[in-house]
């Protein structure tokens, strides 16, 4: 801790900070372009130049690039008073020898660092009258729009894309004043973090193409801090809307969860709310009615069917939504569940119970090594970005996976030996072989043998891909590392943004209870909120479809379940409502609506209309409920408090431990997903258009194809799902034969299927199919 002065203003600094960094922290309006808090200093733009006053008699003052200058006690800088201002004017004038004068039509205008800095540096009049150098714009897919002429060559984009996010399909081309930033080919980016180019770019070179199609001046947007509803990390975002529609999503800066960035799923996936087929009005039997009429109708149904009612929510919905729906269910003497599928519920609860000192994103970034189990990028992209910081720092990252994942591609490139590819049914055994206490080489790889005592390891698992035995194996592995005097943090990426909150509630409202009641025909009226039991939950729910006489769907996407609903109610999205979400760490995070969407309802609205509880009473009751349930006093919703996951979920890792079938004569179904493929984000048109996998195809390793005697001329039929309980379910895909595509990154003995394909064939994720149940069909023609 020390202090220096800028134009006589005192600036405090921490050791290791540079002058610019400390000045910005102190709130000084210091100009800069290429410096970025997360990306560090480059020294390229020369905008942060200040004049350093001499310390000794007879010395001259000198120009200093403050982002490269370590802060030192007692130094005195001139920002506006010295010749630095003159220099910055010059720098901006040089930029303007190339930068177009297209501010009136630029998306960035008004929210542009170049504009701000131009004004701040007092540059006004341009003396360069020559021809401006121009560049070809490059089409960069449906998400990002490139206007190459606007580039001021601050290198932030490649420093983010390559150096920070470890992408390799975008870079800097040519040199001198021909330098330009592009991809080797036209088309969308491979990185799940490409949208951050929009934010790190200080000009309008990279702009949000989705926003561009429904552009609003940024200062006219309704904005608020919100929580991203697309994975269990729960990043802080700032959605901006206007005139009843979402226009764009930005990361909300400097929060405890995500300091600077968000992933493309969070940024572009939230636009599911703008899908053309989003239900925005109530319907009764296909006829559009006003909300009040629909609510009256529903109240009527629920009153008449009291005692035979089930309400099904999903881990994609927040705690308030669950509580409101649970209240309604109880009022009408019905059952409620926040989970659609018992398997997901069990795995989520077990993962939370087995978490140990769950690492935050910052914990991950600063660890000394990591083990990743499952397709992390595709489940919780921001966790992956944190792991990439470890890789960048040269730390060892081991990876065990069954389906293709981008993180594995990155690890494989440098350390193919750190990739362990295997079917999930073998994971428990493989994880046990990582045991650090094994001395002999043949017993296992003995990971992290060369880490010193006291170093910290992160273990991250993808809960939905792991059976509970392999989660236990990870938990045991922690103990083994701790015995070696290493610190270990174990966390899981969960399915659903509010998976933790949902699992907390599901102790009281288990999904199996609701599902069994439906199967036993005790329930014939089902209200569904945010869930898709007859679409992606088909493996469990489709056999029970015929027992449901009345189906009410309260949702904001046009899901397969909504399409067969008797009554439809339009649900507000997270950006459009108030709520509470609990992330994978157990962090309790409240959010408020960012913009207004007329005509949509919240679950609390429903509770008021159907059971007469006022919003104020509801929130008060909810607050007390959460305090009781979590044991937290003085509960806050600002993200500073975490649940004690261990006590909260104690005992829930033992339930439903299925014995693992390691039968060699079987194959295992694994989910094939991508970073834009989550429940809601898959309805975002622009994002969904770059989905890398095809539906109704089976992806498998060449060795598996060989073993099954499959080739380009054959198709594969999966047969009857073995885990569909009593009634075999009649799925369209059951009798359908699917072509295959070979992929080296699918583990041997695995069949990787997209969600849509899984839904067609009716198999659960990780279902094991005996080989003799498969049939190979010759391709016709």
């Amino acid at each position, binding site marked *: 801790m020390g202090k220096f002065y800028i134009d006589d203003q005192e600036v405090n600094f921490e050791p290791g900070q540079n002058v610019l960094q400390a000045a910005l922290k102190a709130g000084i309006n210091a100009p800069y372009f290429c410096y970025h808090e997360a990306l560090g200093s480059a020294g390229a733009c020369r905008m942060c130049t200040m004049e350093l006053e001499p310390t000794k008699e007879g010395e001259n003052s000198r120009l200093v690039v403050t982002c490269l200058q370590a802060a030192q006690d007692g130094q005195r800088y001139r920002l506006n008073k010295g010749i630095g201002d003159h*220099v910055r004017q010059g720098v901006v004038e040089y930029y303007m020898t190339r930068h177009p004068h297209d501010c009136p039509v630029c998306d960035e205008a008004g929210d542009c660092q170049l504009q701000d800095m131009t004004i701040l540096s007092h540059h006004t009049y341009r003396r360069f009258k020559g021809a401006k150098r121009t560049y070809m714009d490059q089409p960069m897919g449906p998400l990002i729009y490139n206007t190459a002429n606007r580039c001021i060559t601050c290198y932030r984009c490649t420093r983010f894309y390559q150096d920070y996010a470890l992408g390799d399909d975008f870079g800097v081309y040519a040199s001198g004043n021909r330098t330009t930033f592009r991809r080797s080919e036209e088309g969308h980016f491979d990185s799940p973090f490409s949208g951050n180019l929009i934010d790190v770019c200080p000009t309008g070179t990279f702009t949000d193409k989705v926003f561009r199609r429904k552009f609003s001046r940024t200062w006219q947007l309704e904005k608020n801090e919100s929580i991203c509803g697309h994975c269990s990390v729960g990043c802080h975002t700032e959605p901006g809307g206007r005139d009843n529609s979402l226009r764009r999503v930005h990361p909300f800066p400097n929060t405890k969860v995500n300091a600077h960035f968000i992933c493309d799923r969070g940024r572009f996936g939230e636009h599911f709310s703008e899908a053309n087929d989003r239900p925005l009005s109530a319907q009764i039997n296909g006829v559009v009615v006003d909300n009040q009429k629909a609510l009256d109708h529903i109240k009527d149904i629920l009153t008449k069917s009291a005692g035979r009612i089930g309400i099904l929510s999903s881990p994609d919905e927040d705690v308030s939504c669950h509580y409101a729906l649970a209240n309604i269910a109880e009022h009408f003497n019905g059952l409620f569940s926040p989970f659609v599928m018992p398997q997901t519920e069990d795995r989520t609860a077990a993962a939370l119970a087995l978490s140990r000192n769950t690492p935050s994103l910052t914990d991950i970034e600063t660890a000394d090594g990591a083990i990743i189990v499952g397709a992390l990028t595709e489940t919780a992209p921001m966790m992956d970005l944190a792991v990439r910081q470890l890789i960048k720092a040269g730390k060892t990252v081991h990876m065990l996976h069954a389906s293709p994942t981008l993180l594995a591609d990155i690890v494989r490139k440098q350390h193919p030996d750190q990739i362990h590819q295997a079917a999930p049914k073998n994971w428990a055994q493989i994880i046990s072989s990582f045991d650090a206490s094994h001395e002999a080489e043949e017993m296992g790889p003995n990971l992290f043998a060369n880490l010193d005592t006291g170093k910290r390891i992160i273990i991250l698992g993808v809960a939905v891909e792991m059976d509970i035995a392999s989660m236990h194996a990870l938990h045991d592995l922690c103990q083994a590392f701790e015995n070696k005097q290493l610190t270990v943090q174990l966390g899981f990426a969960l399915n659903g943004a509010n998976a933790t909150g949902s699992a907390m509630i599901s102790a009281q409202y288990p999904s199996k209870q609701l599902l069994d009641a439906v199967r036993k025909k005790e329930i014939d009226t089902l209200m569904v909120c945010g869930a898709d039991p007859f679409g992606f939950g088909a493996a469990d729910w489709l056999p029970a479809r015929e027992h449901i006489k009345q189906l009410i769907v309260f949702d904001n996407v046009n899901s397969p379940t909504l399409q067969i609903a008797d009554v439809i109610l339009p649900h507000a999205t997270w950006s459009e409502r108030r709520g509470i979400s609990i992330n994978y760490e157990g962090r309790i995070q409240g959010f408020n609506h960012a913009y207004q969407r007329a005509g949509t309802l919240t679950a609390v609205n429903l509770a008021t209309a159907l059971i007469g509880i006022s919003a104020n009473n509801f929130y008060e009751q909810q607050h007390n409920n959460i305090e009781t349930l979590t044991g937290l006093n003085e509960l806050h919703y600002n993200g500073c408090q975490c649940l004690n996951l261990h006590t909260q979920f104690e005992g829930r890792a033992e339930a439903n431990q299925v014995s693992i079938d390691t039968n060699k004569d079987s194959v295992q179904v694994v989910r094939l997903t991508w970073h834009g493929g989550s429940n809601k984000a898959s309805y975002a048109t622009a994002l969904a258009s770059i989905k890398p996998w095809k539906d109704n195809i089976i992806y498998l390793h060449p060795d598996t194809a060989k073993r099954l005697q499959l080739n380009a001329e054959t198709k594969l039929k999966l047969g009857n799902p073995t885990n569909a309980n009593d009634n075999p379910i009649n799925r369209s895909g059951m009798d359908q034969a699917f072509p295959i595509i070979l992929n080296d990154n699918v583990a041997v003995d695995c069949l990787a299927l997209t969600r849509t394909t899984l839904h067609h064939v009716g198999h659960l994720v990780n279902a094991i199919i005996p080989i003799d149940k498969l049939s190979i069909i010759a391709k016709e023609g």
Partner: protein
Amino acid sequence: MDKILSRNFHHPHPLNIDEYQQAGGYRSLDSIIGQPRKELLATLKNSGLRGCGGAGFSTGLKWSFKAPDAPHPVYLVVNLDEAEPGSFKDRQVLYRDPHTIIEGVIASSYILEADKAFIFIRGEYRKGAQGLEAAVNEAKAAGLLGYNIRNSGWNLEIDVHLSAGRYICGEETALLNAIEGYRANPRAKPPFPIAKGLWGSPTIVNNVETICHVPFILHKGIEWFQNQGTNGAYGSHIFQVSGPVKNPGFFELPLGTTAREIIYEHAGGLLEGRELIGFLPGGASTQFMLPKDLDIPMHWDGPPTVGARLGTGGIIVMDDSLCPIDFMINLMQFFTRESCGFCTPCRDGLPFVKYQLEKFETGEADMTDIDTLRELCDIIYPNTFCAFAPGALMPIKSGMDKFETLFHQHIDNHGCTHPSHTPSTDAINNKVDC
């Protein structure tokens, strides 16, 4: 004066290792390898050898910054990325006597305890690089390189690295990026390469001519070395003269020889009927010197007395066949094209400078443009990431001072009235990528 670097140049072909050793080559290593490094370094420091790449920093002092307990590997990087217009001294040694380079590298690496030496050669000198590589293989076969050299317990490998072009690679940190397989943008200093260079290891970067001097200084002694210079300077230097002179070429002469002697005696003076207007003393990125400065001794402290610097000692003669502003535009064309594009003042400022200069040539300039040009130079000069742009502006700044009336004449005459004047070469400048 004894010829050192060019002592074997009279042979029709580069000497092979046997011929080289017969001519006394590698004998210096007898008095170096196995000797205490500290003493050798002290000798070097006291000899007054200064870096021949253009900066003229004391070599011994620079090497003494290497921490004695610096972790291994230690790298020596020999800068043979000679691309400074008007300079061709390193080329001569490379093409005519590669073993001299290897002898220098072995001696220098021994002092520095370097484990590996990279000789970084510009891509345009590929033929020379091949000759050097063949020589390295000879030296390896002769046991001069490799494991436990002369039972000293010290190992050395030499890597001949062929660069793929670009002037900026000669900047020492850009050169490190180039070796590592990155775009050759300079790196921020500190950390200096001597602390953290190639792959984070201590790395010493020196010009090849400097390296070649080292074994001779250690072998023949300080007194001998210091006697090689004249007018108060030490050692010899390969001066080069190009431009409209009768005998353009390179001449190994005592450091401190006057410009007059170099141009008029060794290079034969200007072509018939030509008049000397000025000259750049050491490559394109040095300041102009005028005919009145001809008697200034060409050593590190000579040219600075008239606001110039010795640079590489590659004298570029400017005569009356060309307009000095055209001369400067050509220099700026070179520098704008070769800017690596990393920092703003260089990338976008230098083309602006060139544009300003061209205004004088085309007659679009008025009096305010002189101020604008000066202001551009003043802002860019102290505010760039590396020394490239300051170097680029040295001839412009000094040209504006020394040929000021000429700028006024161009304004008054609405353009260049010099008989040689032709439109600018911009069309070429915009079309260089292949």
